[in-house]
């Protein structure tokens, strides 16, 4: 049975009819066409599907859409303006915080959530926070550096 829900995604209001078991990641990717959010492990471990729900980072692969109904959701598509990247995105570009790119949307969203909550994290705090976002290419140092540089810039 389908249920009507509304989602505010990247500032836009959507009304949808979904099965209660339809997961947020699938709604974003297949119903709304926002394929920036990736699905990798599908069990909440790897962080590729990280999005913000009411400002809090969550695994969209473990959240039924009905449980997000009425919430404001930010995906990687919602971070940048028309012309400019957010400082945290620019830092990932400038400091080589990605290689193949599959984990990058989740990494960037997680970094944004960190800097929103704690604008000047220590290296340890960055590691502890970003621990839940796996990358199989870069070896993490470039990612940590990107987040650190973004924090030094003073803006997420």
């Amino acid at each position: 049975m389908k249920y009507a829900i509304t989602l505010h995604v990247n500032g836009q209001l959507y009304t949808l009819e979904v099965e209660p078991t339809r997961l947020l990641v699938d709604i974003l990717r297949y119903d709304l066409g926002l394929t920036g959010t990736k699905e990798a492990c599908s069990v909440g471990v790897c962080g590729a599907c990280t999005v913000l729900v009411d400002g809090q980072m969550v695994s969209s692969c473990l959240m039924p859409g009905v449980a997000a109904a009425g919430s404001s959701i930010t995906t990687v598509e919602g971070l940048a303006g028309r012309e400019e990247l957010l400082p945290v995105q620019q830092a990932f570009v400038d400091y080589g915080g990605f290689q193949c790119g599959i984990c990058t949307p989740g990494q960037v969203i997680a970094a944004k959530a960190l800097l929103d909550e704690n604008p000047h994290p220590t290296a340890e705090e960055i590691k502890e926070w970003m621990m839940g976002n796996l990358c199989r290419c870069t070896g993490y140092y470039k990612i940590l550096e990107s987040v650190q540089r973004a924090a030094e810039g003073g803006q997420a």
Partner: protein
Amino acid sequence: MSDVQYAEPDNLAGVFDALERYGEEARLLAGGTGLVNLMKQRLVQPGALIGLRRIEALRGVSRQDGALRLGAMATHREVETSEVVRAAAPLLAETYRQVATVRIRNVATVGGGLAHADPSQDPPVALVVLRARVVLTSKDGTREIPIEEFFTDYYETAIAPDEVLTQVLVPPQPAQAGAVYLKFLPRTADDYATVAVAALVELAADGETCRDARIALGAVGSTVLQATAAAAALRGQRPTPEALREAAEQVRALVDPVDDYRGSAAYKRDMAVVFTRRALEQALARARDGAR
């Protein structure tokens, strides 16, 4: 996973009605981090989901008649970061912080976690040491049970089909006690424990004698285990390094681990003894420092 019904009541009466309506087909949806994974693996295939997120009475963390009250829908992250929790039971904040990752802790709830009843979880180990009580509510009333009676077997709890886990009550840590939660993680930092131990050591007024000791272990049996013999060996004694070592040795006969990719049963049994000793040493050091 098609044809699943969904209800999202805004009060407990609505939940009880939905439980009655859908019967054994129903599963309560709290944060979903446990249930959705079980559904993906088809270990659970509910005919109906009852969402609890709109129920105000299940939320929040507060002090209530001296005890800490953790609402069933309070998230792990709320418990971890709550000043009220840190003041009353720092062990609890420290333990919730060690669950998975921030992203999961933002969503996973206190009640959902306990109802999931995976014996490798972190919070039950600390909650046993803190003598927490679980509050179960049905249409017919409310009952409170000690947390160690709540877990009945591997993924099994004492929750009756018509009941909802509504809150957890935790007495504050005694002032003269030190407590610690140690999670042995040989693989990755966000893993389930290979062996987990919580210990609390309370010193008598003389500052030398062990007035009370409490020890619990996770990931080494079908439920969280209370090491009563090890704790009894310390009560009324001077907690010398030798006494701690002997007490820790008692858990060898208690634990019943399984071989898996986190280690062999024999290795986990050895590590249970080692981590119990370390937990006792660290809890004692905290008691002596007045660090709790």
